[in-house]
């Protein structure tokens, strides 16, 4: 501030600098949009001129028409809400139960050491392989799908959050102990609050994981949902339907991820200053 002129005028050099930054930002955004537009245009043109078989590849206008049709008969919202509901439940449960297990393992070093090889094996196991078992045990229904989403996200959460807990500086814990803190106080006063950034990044990973779990679950058992729509579309050879559900999925997953990113930003901001 003190280096600036008295009348708080910004120097020409600085203006040029700001302009350059702004131009660059605009250029990036324009290119991003252009890629999408060009891609859609080529797809559409290729389909119309019969360079590609629109029956197999679908085409943007057909996807749009399918969207409108699903919107008009209300099917669209039923499928979206089923899938989003399953994802949110799976994702929330995965995070909560995963964090809870991480707390238990933090609490008992013995348990943590004992379970270590099991966690490693479970983590490397593709959880999708458990699908058939879940269906037999729980039955073909939304519950199976939620359990699938839960399984996919829970082990990653346990490992990620536990590592976050263990990274809390031993001196911070020593400080609390010099005040005579109990283990519970060490957990609530320092370990948990210090690990919130770790937990939020686990949340971010879990959003993606839960989508995988839910869609795989829907492929296997469901009667509704975007995963079901895609599989059904494939079975009856309606590629329009498949492509439409993929597009909706992309948008929904991106929105959910942005939601968590927004939460993170808000939290970090609140933590830095007032």
């Amino acid at each position, binding site marked *: 501030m003190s280096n600036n002129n008295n009348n708080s005028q910004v120097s020409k050099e600085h203006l040029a600098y700001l302009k350059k930054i702004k131009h660059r930002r605009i250029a990036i955004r324009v290119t991003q949009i252009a890629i999408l537009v060009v891609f859609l245009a080529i797809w559409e043109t290729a389909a119309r001129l019969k360079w590609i078989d629109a029956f197999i590849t679908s085409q943007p206008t057909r996807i749009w028409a399918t969207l409108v049709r699903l919107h008009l008969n209300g099917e669209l919202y039923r499928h979206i809400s089923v899938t989003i509901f399953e994802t949110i439940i799976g994702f929330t449960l995965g995070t909560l139960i995963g964090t809870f297990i991480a707390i238990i393992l933090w609490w008992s070093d013995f348990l943590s050491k004992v379970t270590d090889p099991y966690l490693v094996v479970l983590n490397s196991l593709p959880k999708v392989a458990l699908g058939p078992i879940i269906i037999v045990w729980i039955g073909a229904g939304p519950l199976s799908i939620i359990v699938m989403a839960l399984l996919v996200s829970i082990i990653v959460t346990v490992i990620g959050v536990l590592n976050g807990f263990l990274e809390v500086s031993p001196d911070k814990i020593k400080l609390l*102990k*010099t*005040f005579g803190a109990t283990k519970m106080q060490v957990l609530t*006063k320092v370990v948990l609050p210090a690990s919130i950034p770790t937990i939020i990044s686990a949340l971010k990973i879990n959003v993606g994981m839960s989508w995988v779990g839910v869609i795989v679950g829907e492929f296997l058992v469901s009667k509704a949902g975007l995963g079901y729509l895609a599989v059904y579309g494939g079975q009856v050879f309606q590629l329009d339907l498949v492509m439409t559900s993929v597009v909706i999925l992309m948008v929904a997953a991106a929105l959910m991820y942005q939601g968590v990113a927004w939460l993170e930003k808000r939290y970090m901001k609140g933590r830095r200053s007032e």
Partner: protein
Amino acid sequence: MSEEYIVALDHVSLNYHSLEGETPALKDICLNVSRGEFIGIVGPSGCGKTTILSLIAGLIRPTSGHVYVNGREVEGPSSLVGYMLQQDHLFDWRSIRQNVLLGLEIQGKLNEDTIARADRLLETYGLGDFKNHYPKQLSGGMRQRVALIRTLAVNPEVLLLDEPFSALDYQTRLALSDDVANIIKREEKTALLVTHDISEAISLSNRVLVLSKRPGTIKSSYNIYLSGQNRNPTELRKAPEFREYFNLIWKELDVHVQ
């Protein structure tokens, strides 16, 4: 054990255990500290200086011997003893005031009186305006002062200072050691300071203990008298006796670069 001494170590020894074997860390330490004394402890790295503080704080038990604070044997952390670490370890997610209240919160002593006392400490030592700031907004020296007030807020009799200035740059370090010395004197606390810095130990303490290499024993003890009107530690460094003490302790430490 009489209450004549606020801190007393009676033939204290401590061994550390690891898979590689047993390491004697402290051997036969005897130390009596009177109320209001400021004790400096110097010694080569790894000689068990910090271990002495951990014993007094009740974080660890001696292998043999006894540790007394205020005439009672130490069995665990108590509110009689406050501990100040090398780093301030202020919690980023708490405001300065909330950080200062941490100890009271843990000891279940949060009430109007104690909160008022903590606020008064912040005011008295120039941090009143920063109460609602967050640690990231403060300089290193200020943060370490907040850490001291956090320790004082639970009103301990004895302060254990574990190289509290070593993470700071030289100027801040001098200024802060003046501050801390004055605060401790005004609040009438007893202090034990562990440090690598011989000058710091001499200028702050009434008595300097020199520890030997591991296993740590008390090699020698110097009562410090520095002449001068201005009792600020930085000014006391100019006292004519200062150099003599420095040379004596330097020789005693027998430092060799290996």
